């Protein structure tokens, strides 16, 4: 099971609540708060990094356990590797929950953070993060869907008109190729002026 989450740093950085301890206490575990406090200079970036790890792990968790709730502190995040690059940084982490641990891979780009969470490290994952032209919610959701359909069509070697994304009653998205449920695990996300998706080949 995979989950992904994109966060626009342009949209998120204006929240005055970030500096408020009450906000921190509602979202972050003690371990995470200690980590964030150790990152003096880029605190906000790491706040949103950890949030995207929680959010992407929650999407994966929800697919597996089908239970919805709002409990950010139940997803305890650890940063294992931070590789700095010229145009993007790569961060590898672990998200621990009571029932399941997740591996995460994140990219910090100039104006956004994109994280993919997955259970099985051997899974082949295609992920993509891209700028969107509008901030209108419905238009954005549709743009991300179209991008994902295009990649699924190229992976499957079929026409894009044969690919459909349908959500079940729980809101979990599934890919359909030629009307049949496909063996792809997918996840979609958009925020601010960025869209993203992740595709995994196996449904574990």
């Amino acid at each position, binding site marked *: 099971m995979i989950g992904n989450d994109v966060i626009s740093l342009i949209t998120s950085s204006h929240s005055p*609540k970030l500096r*408020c301890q*009450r*906000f921190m206490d509602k979202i972050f575990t003690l371990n995470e708060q200690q980590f964030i406090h150790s990152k003096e200079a880029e605190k906000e970036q790491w706040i949103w990094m950890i949030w995207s790890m929680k*959010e992407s792990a929650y999407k994966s968790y929800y697919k597996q356990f089908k239970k919805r709730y*709002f409990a950010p502190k139940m997803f305890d995040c650890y940063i294992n590797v931070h590789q700095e690059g010229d145009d993007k940084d790569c961060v590898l982490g672990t998200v621990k929950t009571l029932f399941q641990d997740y591996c995460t891979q994140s990219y910090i780009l100039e104006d956004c953070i994109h994280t993919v969470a997955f259970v099985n490290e051997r899974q082949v994952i295609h992920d993509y993060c891209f700028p969107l032209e509008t901030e209108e919610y419905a238009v954005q959701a549709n743009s991300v869907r179209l991008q994902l359909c295009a990649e699924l069509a190229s992976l499957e070697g079929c026409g894009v008109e044969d690919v459909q994304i349908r959500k079940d009653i729980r809101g979990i998205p599934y890919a359909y190729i030629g009307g049949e449920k496909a063996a792809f695990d997918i996840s979609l996300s958009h925020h601010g002026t960025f869209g993203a998706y992740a595709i995994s080949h196996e449904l574990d």
Partner: protein
Amino acid sequence: MEMERTAVIDRLKTIIEPYVQDKNAFDNIHEETDLLTDLKINSAHLVDIILDAEEAFDIEIDDDSAERMLTVKDAVEIISNRMKE
């Protein structure tokens, strides 16, 4: 004096409105409206809503209560219960 349910709902609506991404769903808001899936509120903003509600109603919403806050009805019940304490 106990605040009436409709007054709680009205106050709550003003708190959540800035974070709503589906204005149409907000115009047709009812007790079963889901904050995340219907109003398309970003989950990071659910924390903003909880913090704003704590201030507006002068209450504390603990983690166990926040966990159940998915619909308008959930939120109203959590707030009303906290105000009685």
